[in-house]
Structures are given as structure tokens and as C-alpha cells.
């Protein structure tokens, strides 16, 4: 098995405010192996984008990693300064496909200039070489090479997203963080973009952190994954393991809340309630209030990481993880009934 390229070890992240701090991420632990596509899935506001930002030092000014370790290629980066991030992490090692591609490209710079700028600050590439490289990448993402000197507003939304992917690949990073890369796009475009992202697996030696609220995207495109809820990691493991044997109630319910092409007739589940506001110390399971199987123990301490028996690296942060296969039998039924395409396809 490959070495982890990125590890989160019991990481807490807070945003300072004038009132109580917001505890956006609490005790998060997961690891991404080199070459893996890793999906991080959860509702909006659950802290997944905060995790993405913390990797590249992109937290807002008031955000801070208060405890735990973030290791990139074994190096602790949680306390890096801006210039250390610039030197050691940003873009050469880790690039980002941001959430809102439509607004992420500087409107007053030609795309070619933005590429040349990246080259200038991170490489020795000459200007023509940088432009050549951008042309290549435009080709890769399916854009016409002649368009490299256009301004962003001359591109459609899908084209901008492809240009952003090209930018993400520009310095051949070892990790790409794709934060909701397709949210703003229509369905057909979403599919195309995901195809490109998927296609990178074969031709590029790159790991991917795919952040999304759409669990099906993760199932379709990733090797391993984590499910997040209310600032806590609920469950992590390989996609197969989590899909087949989810052991955190949220992961179980979430699977049922999305339409699945494999089971088109299934009724969609609804998860009641909202994630809590995380103003006080998080010494409880943030899903307890919404969980049909909650018991007092859920509110008496942060849930421990519980290995799921029989799987490697499959953890669920639930005090009742061991009982879930019985408790949620109803919900898990269908997956025993029919074999998933995914599994069958492999």
C-alpha cells in the first residue's frame, strides 16, 4: 500500500468571532494515500471546505488550526506561515479546483497571463514555455488552444471550469483539491467535467481530494472516502467498504438520501433536523439529535473512532457502530438484496 500523501490527525479548527468561536472542525482524522482519489462528503456547513482550506493555508484570517496535526508527505503543515505555504505547498504540490469557478478567475487578466504568473512564482519556465504548457493543458481539458489569450468573461461556465482544471494541473501537483467542482454546472456539463477529472487518474500521477455533498459522485469516482457531519468525521474507509458496510447512522441515511442509478426505484430518504451550531466545546456526537438510534451515551462524549470489523482502515465514529448492522437492518437491506454495479463492475 502506498504511503499516505496527506494525513489529518485529530485536527480541531476554529474561527474566532466577536462572540463565541465557531468550532468548525473537531477531532478530524483521515488519510489520503498517494495516487488515491479521496472523497469527502457532507452537507453544506459541515466543515468539509474548512478542511480543504486548511490544507493549503486558505483559511480566512480568523480561522486557525488549534490542535492536531496535518501532515503533507509526512511534513507538519498546520502551523505554516503564508510564505511557507507559498514555498512548500501551494500549487506546486497542492492545487485547488475551487467551488465557484465562475468567480475564481481574475476578470481583468487573460488566462494566458494568469498561467504565466503561476509559472513565474513557482517555476523557471519561460513565458513561451508556460504558454505552450497551457496550450497542452487546454487540449487535455478539451478547450481550443487558440483561446488561451481570452479573458475569462469570454468563456462559458463549463469552459471556465475546464480552464480551472487546466490551471490545477499546470504545475503537476501531487494533490488536487476539487471543492464541489461541478456544483455550478448543468448536469451534462457536470458529467463531462467529472469524466475529465476521472480521466486524470490514468495519465497523471496525482492524488485527488474531492469535496462534495453528492455522495454518489464519490461512489462513482473515488477510491476511498470520508463522511462528515457537523464538524466531525463520521466514517472513513474505502469507497467499497463504506458503500457496502456503512456503520455510522449518517452515512447510512445519506446513502439513501441520494438517487442511485443502480437502484432507480428506491424511495429517497429524508434526514430530519439540522446540524447543530458549534459554538461550545464539541464533546458529543453532533449527529445525535438527528439520529434515530441515538442513546444517552451519544451525548456524553465525542464518539471514539471504532474500526469496522473485517475491513482495513474502515473507521466509524459512533458509540453504537458495532450494533449498526442490526439496528439499521431496514436501511441496509437493499444492499444485500442486489449487488451494486460498482462492485460488479470491478
Amino acid at each position: 500500500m502506498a504511503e499516505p500523501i496527506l494525513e489529518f490527525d485529530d485536527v480541531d479548527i476554529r474561527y474566532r468571532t466577536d462572540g463565541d468561536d465557531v468550532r468548525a472542525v473537531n477531532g478530524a482524522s483521515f488519510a489520503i494515500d498517494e495516487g488515491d482519489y479521496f472523497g469527502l462528503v457532507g452537507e453544506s456547513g459541515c466543515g468539509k471546505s474548512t478542511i480543504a482550506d486548511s490544507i493549503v493555508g486558505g483559511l480566512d484570517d480568523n480561522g486557525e488550526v488549534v490542535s492536531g496535526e496535518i501532515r503533507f508527505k509526512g511534513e507538519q503543515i498546520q502551523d505554516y506561515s503564508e510564505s511557507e505555504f507559498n514555498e512548500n505547498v501551494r500549487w506546486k504540490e497542492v492545487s485547488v479546483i475551487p467551488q465557484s469557478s465562475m468567480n475564481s478567475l481574475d476578470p481583468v487578466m487573460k488566462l494566458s497571463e494568469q498561467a504565466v504568473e503561476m509559472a513565474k512564482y513557482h517555476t523557471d519556465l519561460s513565458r513561451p514555455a508556460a504558454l505552450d504548457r497551457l496550450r497542452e493543458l487546454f487540449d487535455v481539458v478539451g478547450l481550443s488552444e487558440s483561446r488561451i489569450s481570452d479573458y475569462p468573461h469570454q468563456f462559458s461556465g463549463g469552459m471556465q471550469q475546464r480552464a480551472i482544471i487546466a490551471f490545477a494541473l499546470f504545475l503537476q501537483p501531487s494533490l488536487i483539491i476539487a471543492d464541489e467542482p461541478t456544483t455550478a454546472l448543468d448536469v451534462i456539463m457536470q458529467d463531462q467535467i467529472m469524466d475529465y477529472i476521472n480521466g486524470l487518474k490514468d495519465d497523471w500521477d496525482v492524488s485527488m481530494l474531492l469535496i462534495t455533498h453528492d455522495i454518489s459522485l464519490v461512489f462513482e469516482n473515488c477510491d476511498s472516502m470520508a463522511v462528515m457531519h457537523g464538524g466531525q468525521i463520521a466514517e472513513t474507509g474505502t469507497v467499497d467498504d463504506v458503500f457496502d458496510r456503512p456503520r455510522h447512522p449518517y452515512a447510512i441515511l445519506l446513502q439513501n438520501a441520494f438517487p442511485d442509478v443502480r437502484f432507480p426505484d428506491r424511495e429517497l430518504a429524508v434526514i430530519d433536523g439540522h446540524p447543530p451550531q458549534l459554538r461550545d466545546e464539541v464533546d458529543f456526537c453532533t449527529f445525535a439529535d438527528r439520529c434515530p438510534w441515538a442513546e444517552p451515551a451519544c451525548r456524553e462524549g465525542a464518539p471514539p473512532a471504532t474500526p469496522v470489523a473485517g475491513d482495513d482502515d474502515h473507521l466509524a465514529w459512533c458509540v453504537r457502530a458495532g450494533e449498526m448492522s442490526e439496528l439499521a437492518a431496514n436501511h441496509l437491506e437493499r444492499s444485500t438484496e442486489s449487488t451494486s454495479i460498482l462492485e460488479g463492475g470491478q
Partner: protein
Amino acid sequence: MSRLRYFARRTAVTAVLIFLVASALFLFFRLMPGDYTSLLIQQGMDPQQIEALRRKWGLAAPLHVQYVRYIVNLLTADVGQSFRYGEPVWDLVAPRILNSFVLVAPAITATYIIGGLFGAIMGRRRGGYLEKSGIITVSAFHSIPDFFLGIILIAVFSSTLGIFPTSGMLSTPTSIMIQDQPYWRRFLLPEFWKHYALPFATVMLYFMQYPALIMRNSVVEVSDQEFLHYHRLKGLPESTLLRKIIRHASLPVVTLYPISLAASISGLVLIEIVFNWPGIGSLLVSSVLARDFPVIQFVFLVAAVWVILGNFLVDLLYGVLDPRVSVSGSDGE
């Protein structure tokens, strides 16, 4: 092609605007209460003399004839003669406009550059001490009447410290000495800069508020934009980010720049009088008091044309600063 069409259209609009302003000025001055000709009538003149004068100045003709004559004269660059001085308005106004321009253009430009940078820093240090004290300072300077600010500076730097002279552009003997030399020659004299310092500082302190506060707001707004976050994630150093922020945030400041330049012509009147700066301000005031309409009309026209042309140039500059406002607007390269 479309760039050319855009340019032609803007030029046409600009020309029409100038024409309208010129016409409005013509009417405005003739509809103003008080006899347009009253200046000509002096104590002790007999009616024949008055009539002769009215004819001489073309004031005997009906209004529409005067109007047509006025427009034709404008088109042939003949802006008339001063009632008061009897000499061509242009000869009277041009050197003064130059003197005012020498003061106001660099002062306002420097104000916008320095004020803009200061505002940008305030915006980047949101909530900090610098921002709070900066806002109070620039607002305080703007809330003092401009001429009084000048008097305070004179009291401190001339009367008390004796560093700078109180009045004029040069000492009178010097200005007479170099009067036959090219205009720029004075810029080589330390004396000029000593005379220049206080009025320059007055204009600057007084007008600092606009660029500083607008830039601050604009920077705060731009800093929250997604593309800046993206730039940051791409690993661009802070100085580069700041440059980009300033470029984006400067659009409203650039818009205001020519307006401030023009507005300062009127604001300058009192500053010029306080410092006895030989600019357009004092001529304008005395011409208004003396109802020297050809002069007033022309000065107003120059100010209006200045604003219109300034906006025209800003429109073009916008195209450079922000390609979304580009003249072509299509995606052809």
C-alpha cells in the same frame, strides 16, 4: 471595427454634450437676473456712448442672432473679448488656466495616488488602529474649510516656522526676471517649489478624503472576492495580491478622479485667493462680481469640457483596467 464604432460613438456623444453645455451657458447668463449690459454702463456715460458700446459688443442684436454668432465663433475658436479688460478672453484665461492646472493637476493626482494607497492599506488592515485613526484624520482635514486649512498652514509654516512664503507662484521679481523664458523654466527654481509647497499641501490634505475612503471601501469589497482567494491559493505573494486588489479597487477611484479635478477648480478659488496663486480662481471671482460674461462663460465652458473629456478618457481607461467594459465586447482577438 467595433472598436472604431465605439470610439466614434463616444466622440459624437462627447461633442453633443459639449455643444449642449455651451448652449446652456449662453442661455444661463442671459437669463440671469440683472442686465447683461449693466457692466458696460458706467457712471457718467451718456446714452449715445452706451448705445455705441452695446453695438460694439454685439448686444444690440436679438437673442437668437447673438446665439448663432456665439456658436459660430466658438466653432472658429473665437471665444470673444472680455468686457472688462477689452482683450481676447483666450489671452486672459489661458495663462491662468495653465497656472491653476500646474497646481491642481499634480496636487489632485498625487492626492489620488497617495490617498489611494493609504486607503488600500486601511482596507487591508480592516479594524486596525491605522484604519480607525486614518478615517478620522482624512475626514477631519476635509471638514475644515479649504481656505481655512490654507490659513492654518500659513500660520504654522510661514508665520511661525518661516519655512515657506505665503503668497504667489514665484516672488514677483523672479517672475518678472524669467517671464521671457519658457514656462517650464520656473520648475527648475527652488523658489518655485517653496511657493508650491503650501497650496499643494492644502489641496492634498483637503481632497485626501475622497480617494482614501473610497479606496478603503473598495479594497474591503474586492478582498472578499473569490478570485482573490484563488490567487492566494495559487501561492502569489502578498505584494502581488495587494497590487491586484488595488487594480480592481481603483475603478471607482479612477471614476472620481476627473470629477475631483474639475470640482477642485471651484474649490481652488478660495485656496488661490488665500495664497495669491495667479490662477483661474481669482479671475473667475472678480469676473463674476464684475459680470464679465465672456470670461465667466468661457471659464465655465472650459470646466465643463474638462469634466466631459475627463469622463471620456476614464471610459477609455476603464477598458484597460477592466476588459469586461472592453470596447469590443465580443470574444474576437
